[in-house]
């Protein structure tokens, strides 16, 4: 196999139970991955390639006072040292803003230091070892200024926009009046910790220049956007930027936009005139590639005597960097989940000397849901109600803030199926009532999961050849979610071909723009584009056949036929049909080609609120004396429209729920408040769950048909699992212990 970007599977031997939509195909790239044959960006080493290693700042604010460039250059094997003095000048300053997805990058254009682990130089050498030692020999000296750290920093302000262009304040009804009229009220403040991206595959690039033509092996969740950004920085045509990204070792939002260190690798290749590989070291991930900012959220809720919400007020304080804007939109979940007549969400922020926080799996929804679901639990407790009964009492039949009907919403079924499977009805109302046979405290908690069903833009091309084989091309991205498989299933279904008859090509910027693999919208968007392209192919076949008196389909009309098993069949009489090969042969056509587009439907989105929903039920056990906490059981029931591949979808839910365990119990970047440096920038001390921390997991796929959301009825599944889960676990900890910990992650010292 020479071209992984277009052929994932040289010898496909999956356990196949049919290849069309709805079938639980195993990953078509699975064998490649478990045998090591799948080549990730950093696995490439073109002839003549050099290695680049970054030196990074050890202060959070100030400037680089000195770099011992001579010492690094003198080290055997070092070819070049790139610093602001010789870094290639860029056609666009990396601080120049563009579209809403253009974020400022640190590309050695000056000596300012804006956060810890900011690149301050790049050493290029014949070997990785020489480059590593060269970077150490630079021994940077800094002029440090006192950094701003933590949410108590000065200068709190209201951002102009949160997330991507959302308003910071949203008000519906009169929250103060609703609270005043309430017979019961709670007010509580929750904190969530800063979390840093740590996909197994760190950001990497292998860059090769040929004149102004640039070839990149680079993990990317959005090829066209990366192409555009890179072309802009280097003043070249986007068409001259060729990115191959067939496999990602995890993205989670961190590879949505090209990261500064990746651009530095490209600059280094430009500087030395040879291909260059740059792979980030683990500790360097804690700075320049985005993170989830900490939040402090204050929720005020009120209910009437019957437990119906009268008001919901959700205030969020978060942080961005000193030099760019991204504000975790934690309040968004409160717009959609519970039917309060008065809802207000407000966001404030401070600026800290950190890298710019960016998208991290369910940005806003994850942190917001953790707080909202805890507050709803506290409100239910104040009402003396079961947490599920309370949520059903306040079930939103229409989207509360917008008033729009939901395009579909099977949340009630999620609650019911999840509760049944979990055994929720046996839950005592009061906390600290259950122990297991070992004497450990047992608690059960619930959290509602939600994530918007988004659509972006994508194009696809499909070609059916006279041989009866097809090619489907789209610059889509498999970041582990299974696009190689699920998108190919969509192509197979829509073309009416077995999956093995399709040369399915993704993961290259030379293919039609597949859009961004983010926002849980990739299968829906890319799938819609593939659907459109395939439909054009089938329509052309139908036109050829139904207009041809020699065809058994003559006169059936385009709408009167359906493609299946490599044949066109009459809808009204499937005994009458003709195979694709015969249709093309008689028409004398070598091939027919179709093109399709995936895009949101503005009219439908104007008319309907579109969200996936779920209910996560959690069991935790807590040692009554030692405070040690473990999640022991999670049941999540999710409704997300049409399911393309249930095996892969379950995998997404499991992964999301494990992120929820991490969010609730483990994950936090520990910053030294004096230096602004992360003190646990490694995977031994920055905790995420190990296998022994992963509880019994169950994901229930609740049926949901949605005729409005997109042509295939797909909602996303990538991010919803992390929402709901963190709150469910926090609620279970309260139920086990009677102690309400309002700061996540909940560590054992808070329960002593």
């Amino acid at each position, binding site marked *: 196999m020479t071209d992984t970007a277009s052929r994932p599977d040289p010898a496909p031997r999956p356990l196949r139970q049919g290849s069309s939509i709805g079938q639980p195909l195993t990953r078509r790239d699975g064998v490649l991955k478990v045998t090591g044959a799948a080549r990730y960006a950093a696995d490439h080493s073109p002839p003549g390639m050099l290695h680049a290693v970054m030196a990074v700042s050890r202060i959070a604010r100030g400037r680089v006072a000195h770099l011992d460039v001579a010492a690094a250059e003198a080290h055997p094997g070092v070819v070049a040292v790139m610093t602001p003095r010789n870094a290639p000048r860029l056609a666009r300053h990396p601080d120049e803003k563009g579209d809403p997805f253009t974020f400022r990058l640190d590309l050695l254009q000056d000596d300012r230091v804006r956060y810890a682990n900011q690149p301050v130089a790049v050493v290029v050498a014949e070997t990785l070892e020489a480059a*590593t030692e060269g970077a150490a020999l630079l021994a940077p000296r800094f002029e440090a200024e006192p950094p701003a750290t933590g949410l108590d920093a000065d200068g709190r302000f209201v951002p102009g926009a949160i997330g991507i262009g959302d308003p910071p304040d949203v008000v519906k009804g009169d929250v103060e009046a609703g609270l005043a009229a309430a017979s019961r009220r709670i007010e509580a403040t929750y904190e969530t910790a800063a979390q840093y991206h740590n996909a197994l595959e760190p950001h990497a690039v292998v860059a090769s220049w040929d004149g102004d033509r640039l070839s990149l092996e680079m993990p990317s969740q959005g090829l066209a956007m990366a192409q555009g950004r890179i072309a802009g920085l280097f003043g070249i045509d986007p068409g001259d930027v060729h990115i191959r990204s067939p496999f990602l070792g995890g993205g989670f939002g961190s590879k949505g936009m090209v990261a500064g260190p990746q651009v530095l690798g490209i600059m280094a290749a430009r500087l030395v005139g040879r291909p260059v590989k740059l792979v980030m070291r683990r500790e360097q991930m804690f700075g320049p590639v985005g993170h989830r900012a900490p939040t402090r959220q204050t929720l005020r809720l009120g209910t009437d005597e019957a437990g119906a919400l009268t008001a919901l007020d959700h205030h969020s304080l978060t942080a961005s960097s000193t030099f760019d804007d991204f504000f975790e939109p934690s309040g968004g979940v409160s717009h959609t989940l519970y039917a309060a007549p008065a809802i207000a969400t407000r966001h404030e922020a401070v600026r800290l000397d950190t890298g710019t926080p960016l998208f991290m799996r369910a940005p806003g929804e994850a942190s917001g849901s953790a707080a909202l679901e805890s507050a709803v639990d506290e409100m239910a407790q104040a009402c003396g109600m079961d947490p599920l009964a309370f949520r059903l009492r306040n079930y939103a039949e229409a989207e509360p803030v917008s008033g729009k009907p939901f395009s579909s919403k099977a949340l009630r079924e999620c609650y019911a199926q999840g509760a049944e499977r979990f055994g929720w009805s046996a839950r005592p109302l009061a906390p600290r009532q259950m122990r297991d046979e070992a004497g450990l405290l047992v608690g059960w908690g619930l959290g509602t999961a939600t994530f918007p069903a988004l659509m972006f833009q994508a194009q696809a091309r499909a070609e059916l050849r006279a041989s009866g084989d097809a090619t489907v091309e789209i610059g889509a991205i498999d970041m582990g979610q299974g696009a190689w498989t699920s998108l190919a299933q969509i192509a197979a279904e829509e073309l009416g071909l077995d999956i093995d008859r399709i040369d399915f090509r993704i993961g290259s910027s030379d293919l039609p723009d597949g859009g961004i693999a983010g926002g849980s919208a990739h299968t829906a968007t890319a799938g819609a584009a593939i659907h459109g392209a395939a439909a054009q192919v089938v329509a052309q076949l139908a036109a050829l056949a139904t207009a041809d008196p020699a065809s058994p389909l003559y006169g059936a009309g385009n709408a009167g036929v359906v493609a299946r098993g490599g044949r066109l069949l009459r809808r009204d009489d499937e005994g009458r049909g003709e195979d694709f090969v015969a249709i093309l042969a008689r028409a004398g056509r070598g091939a027919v080609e179709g093109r399709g587009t995936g895009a949101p439907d503005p009219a439908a989105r104007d008319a309907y609120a579109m969200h996936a929903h779920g209910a996560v039920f959690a069991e935790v056990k807590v040692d*009554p004396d030692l405070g040690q906490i473990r999640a022991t059981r999670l049941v999540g029931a999710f409704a997300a429209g049409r399911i393309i591949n249930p095996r892969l979808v379950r995998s997404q839910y499991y992964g999301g729920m494990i992120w929820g365990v991490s969010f609730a119990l483990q994950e936090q970047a*520990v910053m030294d408040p004096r230096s602004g440096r992360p003190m646990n920038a490694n995977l*031994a001390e920055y905790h995420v769950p190990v296998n*022994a921390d992963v509880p019994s997991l169950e994901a229930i796929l609740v049926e949901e048909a949605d005729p409005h959301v997109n042509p295939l009825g797909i909602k996303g599944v990538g991010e919803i699992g992390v929402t709901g889960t963190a709150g469910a676990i926090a609620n279970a900890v309260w139920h086990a212990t009677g102690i309400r910990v309002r700061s996540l992650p909940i560590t054992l010292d808070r329960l*002593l």
Partner: protein
Amino acid sequence: MRPFDYVRARDIAGAVAAAAEPGAAYLAAGTNLLDLMKGGVSRPTRLVDITRLPGLAAVTATQGGGLRIGALARNSDLAHDQAFARAYPAVAEALLSGASAQLRNAATAAGNVMQRTRCPYFADTASACNKRRPGAGCEARGGETRLSAVLGWSEHCIATHPSDFCVPLVALDAVVEIASPAGSREVPLEAFHLLPGDAPERETVLEPGELVTALRLPAEAAAFAGHSRYLKVRDRTSYAFAVVSAAAALRLDGPRIAEARLALGGVALKPWRARAAEAALAGREPDATAFRDAADAALAGATPSGDNGFKIELARRIVARALTLAAAGTPERLPALPASAFAPIPGAASP
């Protein structure tokens, strides 16, 4: 790359001679040292590879009825040796609760004893650390101190020793055998690691060139086999250092405790033998009151070194629990999650 000499020792005398020069370090599995070298924390000018020294991995009975654990015995080999686990169950439990399976397969017994602190300020070369650079100051003080020491610390260093293995070993009076340029000597493990005082850069009693060749358990250590446990409380179930841990071993005489052994991990720059607690238990009945008294005695001198006062109360509770577990008797088989708090709590109320 950064150049350093690499010497493969053929025998102990050769190793000791090769390592006598300043800047030399012994290399066994390298699970700790190589990471520290990559991070620029340790910068030895010479590595003396001892992995091919003959006989150094052997685990053998001593003439007096004790056990001699060769310096190169692998953590996992030792822990999974059935006879070893039967005789010294708390040691096996401690070994299996350390690091990850992959690391345990590589890491050696002496390497475990010699591992460096996990204090983040020691690992971060941009921070001041008296261990890395004597006199530089201790930036951990006033910084991130959740896991810092509560016993035996000084204003110059508040780090902890991270080993699990050493905790039951020190409780059982293990002895460190050392090869020296001048011959050989031995030191009780309890005296092997040094508290920081005003010289935290000096971590053990080893002189330049000295090599740990074995750890020896005395004959009486096996007398505790029926009532020995190690308990480790940590922030995740595996691959995490102890917040606090304890090894408890009892020798019962009828209804009373004839002799108790107790040591704590994660609380000080050395595995912490709690002799006052042991004395408080001698002759007592093994009950909750006695264990609470022992816990109080063990932590009598403890003071927070920062924002870590919780560790003192946690340590008290861990001592009481570990003693309770030990009194209940060593389980027939090692638990599925060794040293985990997620084992049945003896005497706890069931629903």
